[in-house]
């Protein structure tokens, strides 16, 4: 069953509360915040932002790694309610605060509503251009290497398990499993193990 609520803002708050609860329990005390136009309440950008409302890759505990998460969200009318729709997402793992700097790895999705003419895989992962160990004509920073739908839970799992970020709680795997389960229901998508 998709995420349904009575107003666009209620839809967005449910998603925000869910993601921040997971982030704050498992990984970081930073919180995702919304930017929305007063005149366009049914679309929003949910992301990490600084005090000037600008996008920023947040620091992670006991680590040189930084994280930027962003979602372009839409609440679509369905009868008297609204349903969550994800227009675009970008998750960046990098070593500087500025998102202008190239990330070591990026997980991205661009829907057909946002870019109808894109011919590359809409779910893809890309790597820093100085990625080592590949042949000259294979560029992980340019190819849109296909992936499944990537959740924030997947990214948190990768940060803890592979990059050594210390989790905030010992039961982080169970917290992530429960979070993933809820997101699977809301988005009606198969969440990769």
């Amino acid at each position, binding site marked *: 069953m998709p995420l349904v609520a009575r107003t666009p*803002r209620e839809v*967005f*708050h449910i998603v*925000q509360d869910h993601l*921040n609860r997971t982030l704050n329990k498992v990984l970081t005390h930073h*919180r*995702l*915040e*919304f*930017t*929305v*136009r*007063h*005149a*366009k309440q049914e*679309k*929003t*950008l949910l*992301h990490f*932002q600084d005090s000037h*409302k*600008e*996008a920023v*890759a947040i620091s992670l505990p006991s680590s040189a790694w930084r994280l*930027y998460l*962003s*979602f*372009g969200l839409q609440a679509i009318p369905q009868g008297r309610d609204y349903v969550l729709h994800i*227009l*675009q997402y*970008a998750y*960046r793992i990098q070593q500087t605060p*500025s*998102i*202008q*700097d*190239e*990330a070591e790895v*990026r997980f*991205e999705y*661009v829907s057909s509503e*946002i*870019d109808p*003419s*894109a011919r590359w895989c809409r779910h893809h992962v*890309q790597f*820093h*251009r100085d990625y080592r160990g590949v042949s000259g004509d294979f560029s992980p*920073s340019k190819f849109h290497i296909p992936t499944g739908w990537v959740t924030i839970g997947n990214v948190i799992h990768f940060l803890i398990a592979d990059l050594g970020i210390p989790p905030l709680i010992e039961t982080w795997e169970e917290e992530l499993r429960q979070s993933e389960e809820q997101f699977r229901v809301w988005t009606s998508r198969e969440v990769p193990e």
Partner: protein
Amino acid sequence: MLQGESLMNTQAASNTPMETVETAENGFHELSDEEFLALIDTGARKGLGMSGEEYLRRLREGTIERTGPNGYLAYLSMLASLLDY
């Protein structure tokens, strides 16, 4: 669709103070159109070295990417989608 370029031009010509409707209730930053276009302009200048007006024009013409190594491409794309670009 809100016409970003004409709104920016009007704002610059009139030199009037921006309307402020921003609230930050529970992490919700609600911006007037003027504030929103200013946010796009700031991001485009800082991240891509062009004005917000030029960014929106190039997005409309399909001559700028929605993603890329520079994270401002995806960030500004998501902001622009709130203008139905």
